[in-house]
């Protein structure tokens, strides 16, 4: 693996940071890294604050290496990355809201997570008392003839999470969408500070309920890397089994839901049955429909009995038997294809610029999958393909998910085949000195990053879980442009970004 710094920035490597290297850089190094992001030599994987420092995670697009950069900001300012690389803008706004860190020359400094309701400003930084009466939000100006605005949310018409969408339309055609998020901000990063590992792991599993396995997996891997311990082989395989079941459940449910948003309810009815069968199998095998709190730092909290393994095997068989007819149904229904083909195009350049993960990036030509590119056990021992398409429309996102369902079925076969016997868990330990680590796990929606620092006493000093949605939400605004208002639910569902994971 080549040094990610080479020819881009200089920085001092921090000892006691595991998983990936972390480098302390000066302002010059920070600016150089921002420029490398702008030129596409690096991809942004996260940006988060601390009391007097700012961190960013970067990936080398080719070569599968990653690093964390840290700039000390004693005066609470840092050179804005968003100034040259737009994907950083919302992350910088969030770092400002939580810590009071000011990105210099930032293109947009409107509050993001802070709606003026907390009764405190900079809750993780200076904690200044503030009124809780709410502050009005200024949407970006839109100019032109015959335009009208449609405000939607935060409470939506369906059973979905809250957020506000401000559409500007010319007749039926959307000329601009601007989202306002932050409604479900629960202050999870604040709750994690000073928490025990067990409590922080529980919170990590509640960042985004649909990805509870992925988050618990990423948190556990970060904690283990920081502490220098390894989960036993059987636990590692059980984790991957749960992760693939979670991917199956979400993909199956969403393929049906996307078709339902194109008024094709038959597909939803069939896919929802398959999804329910996955959840029931999870309950029978792991004791919880969503497998929450089953992955813990040090291993897993429950074993898979032979009956559970048999249930999983017969689930795979059942889905394999039923899937081809559904794929055919999707592919051969002209009225459905009419809605999904060519709708909600995401340009490959934008997917690459934003480092869009998951099926959103892969349907627009960005071939990244943390299971392959930043590989972790047991995926280094499993054979799978990462489906990639170039078209970037709703149809491509559906197809990528269909192909990923097939890959997950094959992975589950291999996992059951290779599953070793043995212990499920090792004890975590108190490190004695502060230790840190970063870990990335491929959830169904994309790459979930967890950065963690554990104090000498074994309590969490700082943890930042970064949802893939951070780099997907802004792209939805681009995708809907030029489409009709009625296609928004279809585009939105084909993205299915997490509100809770983003708002934290």
């Amino acid at each position, binding site marked *: 693996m080549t040094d990610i710094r080479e020819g881009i920035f200089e920085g001092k490597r921090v000892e006691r940071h595991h998983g990936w290297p972390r480098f302390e850089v000066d302002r010059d190094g920070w600016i150089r890294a921002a420029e490398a992001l702008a030129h596409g030599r690096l991809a942004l994987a996260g940006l988060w604050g601390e009391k007097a420092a700012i961190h960013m995670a970067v990936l080398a697009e080719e070569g599968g290496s990653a690093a964390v950069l840290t700039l000390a900001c004693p005066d609470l300012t840092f050179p804005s990355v968003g100034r040259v690389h737009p994907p950083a803008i919302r992350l910088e706004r969030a770092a400002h809201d939580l810590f009071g860190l000011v990105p210099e020359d930032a293109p947009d400094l409107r509050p993001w997570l802070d*709606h003026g*309701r*907390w*009764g*405190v400003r900079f*809750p993780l930084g200076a904690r200044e008392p503030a009124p*809780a009466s*709410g502050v009005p939000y200024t949407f970006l100006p839109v100019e032109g003839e015959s335009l009208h605005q449609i405000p939607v949310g*935060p*409470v939506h*018409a*369906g*059973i*979905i*999470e*809250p957020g506000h969408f401000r559409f500007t339309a010319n007749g039926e055609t959307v000329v601009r969408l601007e989202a306002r998020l*932050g*409604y*479900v*901000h*629960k*202050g*999870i990063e*604040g*709750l994690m500070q000073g928490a025990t590992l067990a*409590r922080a792991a*529980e*919170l990590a599993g*509640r*960042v*985004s*309920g*649909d990805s*509870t396995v992925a988050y618990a997996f990423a948190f556990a891997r970060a904690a283990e890397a920081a502490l220098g311990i390894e989960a036993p082989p059987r636990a590692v395989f059980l984790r991957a089994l749960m992760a693939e079941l979670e991917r199956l459940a979400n993909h199956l*449910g969403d393929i049906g839901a996307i078709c339902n948003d194109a008024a094709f309810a*038959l597909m939803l*009815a*069939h896919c*929802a*049955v398959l*999804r*329910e069968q996955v*959840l029931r199998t999870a309950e029978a095998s792991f004791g919880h*429909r*969503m497998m*929450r709190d089953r992955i813990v730092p040090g291993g897993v909290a429950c074993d898979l009995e032979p009956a559970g393994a048999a249930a999983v095997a017969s689930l795979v068989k059942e889905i394999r038997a039923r899937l081809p*007819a559904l794929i055919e*149904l999707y592919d*051969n*229904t002209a009225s459905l294809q009419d809605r999904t083909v060519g709708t909600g195009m995401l340009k490959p350049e934008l997917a690459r610029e934003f480092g869009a993960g998951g099926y959103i990036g892969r349907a627009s030509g960005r071939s990244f999958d943390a299971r392959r590119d930043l590989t972790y056990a047991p995926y280094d021992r499993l054979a799978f393909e990462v489906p990639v398409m170039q078209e970037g429309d709703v149809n491509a996102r559906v197809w990528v998910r269909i192909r990923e369902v097939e890959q997950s079925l094959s992975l589950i076969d291999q996992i059951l085949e290779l599953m070793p016997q043995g212990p499920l868990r090792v004890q975590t330990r108190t490190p004695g000195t502060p230790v840190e680590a970063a870990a990335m796990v491929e959830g169904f929606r994309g790459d979930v990053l967890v950065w963690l620092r554990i104090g000498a006493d074994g309590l969490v000093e700082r943890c930042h879980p970064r949802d893939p949605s951070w780099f997907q939400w802004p792209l939805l605004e681009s995708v809907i442009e030029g489409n009709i208002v009625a296609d928004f639910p279809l585009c939105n569902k084909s993205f299915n970004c*997490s*509100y*809770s994971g983003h708002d934290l």
Partner: protein
Amino acid sequence: MRKLLFEALLKPILTETRPTADDAAVAQLADAVARTARKRLGRSLSIREVDAGSSNDSELEIHALNNAFYDVERFGIHFVASPRHADVLLVTGPVTKNMRQALERTFAATPSPKWVVAVGDEALDGGCFAGSYAVAGGVADVVPVDLRIPGNPPSPTALLKGLLALLDQADAR
């Protein structure tokens, strides 16, 4: 498509039998439903779901109520798009401070008689998010709650039991 539809005619029905209404929920509801009028409700409940800060797990299980195994509409329970059409607000939470006003407004927009059902452990008292600077508390800290369905998240069966208790009690009056 014809083949799939035809096969569906021959296959056994997936929909499961009605679970019995949850006893604890029936007891909780005895008070709340004293205010009801069966005449007004008929045999149906219209539900408006409000996510007041949940981590989206409860939403997934509420969605599952509509799948072929639970088929909630056979009981006259259905989800509506506007609080103006709703008898019941099904609220998941904790209630975040950023969602508090939206929840209050949704409650105000729902015509009486109305019931509020708090769904999930976090909706009861904030659960593992209690004490955060960004969390106002459980649903009952913001709007009056008639029924609590605990769970992490509650399974569709648990949700169904609670809702059936609500329907039965409303019926009994």
